[in-house]
């Protein structure tokens, strides 16, 4: 009997005295500036659609803290929970801001990519225009009887562009020279190699000298048209490398030629 009474007293005392039971259920929610402002902020958070969309986890955690705050009767603990609630609300707001900024950054990156693509398109168009110009120019080169060889683009100034038996260029050659000069101007990195040939009539030394004079004549004309002398190289070949046998007048005329190479 004595033990039973003692047991009842001790258990009763500690059950009532236990810290977790200190707060009576009937006690009202404690109030402070911190608590009321936290509750106010939480109510605003619940209405904020951006936060609900971009920070649902943080908003949910805030809701849990709010529930604890609602049931907390101890002022000190309630104040602490209110502080945590405000921090959690701030976290939800920052998370929302972070997501919005990420979206903005993504949009900017897309715009930059679009802009870069537009620039590439413009570059491509410029290249196309340049290509068209080159094609037109190449068509002009074709008219000059130009061919592409392993050595470079080759132009031929035939015997008919010189006065008969002379190194003096005829006026008709100017058109041809002009086009070669245009081509050289559009390829400033290239140089000109002038190779001059004769037929085999006459002595070898005469033929060599004859071809040299014709080569010099072409070089002089190119220089007069503004081609830098350092870009011009001359090789007099004399009667070497006939393109056809020197057995007829027409063939000998064909072999008397100046080949102009535009090379790298």
């Amino acid at each position, binding site marked *: 009997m004595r033990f039973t009474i003692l047991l009842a007293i*001790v258990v009763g005392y500690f059950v009532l005295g236990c810290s977790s039971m200190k707060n009576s259920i009937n006690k009202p929610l404690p109030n402070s500036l911190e608590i009321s402002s936290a509750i106010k902020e939480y109510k605003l958070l619940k209405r904020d659609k951006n936060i609900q969309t971009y920070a649902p986890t943080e908003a949910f955690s805030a809701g849990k803290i709010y529930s604890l705050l609602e049931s907390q009767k101890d002022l000190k603990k309630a104040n602490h929970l209110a502080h945590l609630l405000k921090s959690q609300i701030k976290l939800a707001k920052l998370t929302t801001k972070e997501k919005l*900024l990420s979206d903005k950054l993504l949009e900017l990156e897309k715009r*930059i990519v679009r802009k870069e693509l537009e620039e590439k398109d413009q570059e491509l168009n410029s290249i196309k225009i340049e290509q068209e110009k080159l094609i037109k120019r190449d068509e002009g080169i074709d008219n000059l009887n130009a061919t592409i060889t392993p050595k470079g683009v080759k132009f031929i100034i035939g015997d008919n562009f010189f006065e008969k038996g002379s190194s003096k260029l005829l006026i008709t050659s100017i058109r041809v020279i002009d086009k070669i000069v245009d081509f050289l101007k559009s390829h400033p990195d290239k140089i000109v190699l002038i190779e001059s040939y004769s037929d085999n009539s006459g002595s070898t030394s005469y033929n060599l000298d004859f071809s040299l004079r014709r080569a010099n004549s072409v070089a002089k004309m190119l220089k007069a048209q503004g081609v830098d002398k350092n870009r011009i190289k001359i090789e007099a070949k004399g009667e070497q490398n006939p393109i056809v046998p020197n057995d007829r007048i027409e063939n000998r005329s064909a072999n008397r030629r100046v080949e102009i190479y535009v090379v790298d």
Partner: protein
Amino acid sequence: MKLSFYLLFMIFFFIGCAKDDIPKRDISNAKMALAQSDNSIVKEYAPQKLKKLKTKYKELDRLINQKKYEEAKFLAQDIQIQSLLIQKEASINKLSKKIKNKEDVLKNNKIDLEEKE
């Protein structure tokens, strides 16, 4: 005799219930949160706040040594959430810088430094 032993057990049990214990879990969480915040992004974009957080952690140590466990618990919980906040703020600062850089790229055709980094 058995009953007496039982009673003593109950007394100690309830005393244990009533007293504040060392908030080990909160302290451990606070320590972990601080470690997570102590990263290169926070160091670059929110250095002052990281410094303040470290000061708070020292304060936590002091409270534990003084056996002020309830205050320590509150502070540990505060450190946890403040740690998340500074990580978020650092991330926002970094994003803002990136946005400014991209806006400059769009406005002035400036070289995108971010891309080179």
